[in-house]
């Protein structure tokens, strides 16, 4: 086996230190999003960039060990479904609006200037953030691992679905 492609020791060491800080900064941005600038969109992109930094510094093999593609897909899909479910849970209704409606604020709200103000908004923010982080990290791996025609067969952006049903022969 070849040594995994990556960058120099200096870059790796720096990355080890910095990526943690970036992740913490991302979480801070998410937490402060309801009373200051920040929120899910920025959180998602920052986390994806931190993960990308790890990917670039340590190379593909190490990054694969670090994060599985399956986990990325699961995180993206389930968080965006969670956003939809938050919307549908609005049909449960509240004392003020008994019929309920799509994306109704059904949780009790907190007090202004608290992190946990906003009821469903915090959940929605979390869902958006996790979704963006997973999606963008996933697509960045695909884009940067796609080598083009020099080595057309080394990349495998999507796992092929097992060909169970190739029973229809293609007429020539």
């Amino acid at each position, binding site marked *: 086996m070849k040594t995994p492609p990556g960058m120099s020791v200096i870059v790796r060491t720096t990355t080890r230190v910095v990526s943690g800080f970036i992740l913490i900064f991302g979480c801070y941005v998410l937490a402060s999003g309801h009373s200051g600038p920040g929120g899910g969109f920025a959180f998602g992109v920052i986390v994806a960039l931190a993960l990308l930094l790890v990917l670039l510094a340590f190379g593909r093999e190490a990054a694969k060990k670090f994060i599985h593609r399956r986990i990325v897909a699961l995180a993206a899909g389930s968080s965006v479904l969670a956003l939809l479910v938050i919307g549908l849970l609005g049909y449960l209704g509240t004392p003020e609006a008994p019929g309920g409606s799509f994306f109704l604020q059904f949780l009790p709200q907190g007090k202004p*200037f608290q992190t946990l103000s906003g009821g469903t908004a915090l959940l929605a923010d979390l869902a958006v953030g996790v979704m963006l982080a997973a999606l963008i990290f996933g697509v960045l791996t695909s884009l940067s691992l796609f080598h*083009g025609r020099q080595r057309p067969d080394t990349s495998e952006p999507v796992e092929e679905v097992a060909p169970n049903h190739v029973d229809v022969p293609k007429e020539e």
Partner: protein
Amino acid sequence: MLVYVLCLALMAVGIYAMVAKKNVVKIIIGLMVTEYAVNMLLVVIGWRTGGVPPILPESSGGATTRFLAHAVDPLAQALIMTSIIVSLAVLLVSVALAIRIHQKYGTFDITEIRKLKG
């Protein structure tokens, strides 16, 4: 009024690049410039003279009278946030297509990418 003219001018620059340029990368850059122009127009129309950011400061203690008189339009800013995410999605798709086109044709120049008639 000059601000609106400048926004539309930037937009014209972007559309010009998208329509007239013959290179996939330049076209993508034109797309980005056009998106910037629209975002710029949105932030410009939301500005209020002597404005403050639409975030109620904790020091106000919940008193909103002064804030309401000066806060810039939060709705316009929320629209920009949505449009930034949408632009990012379009950009990712166009980059994926560009990479794949480069793999098939070996170039970004669309004068050489002409399998279709028109």
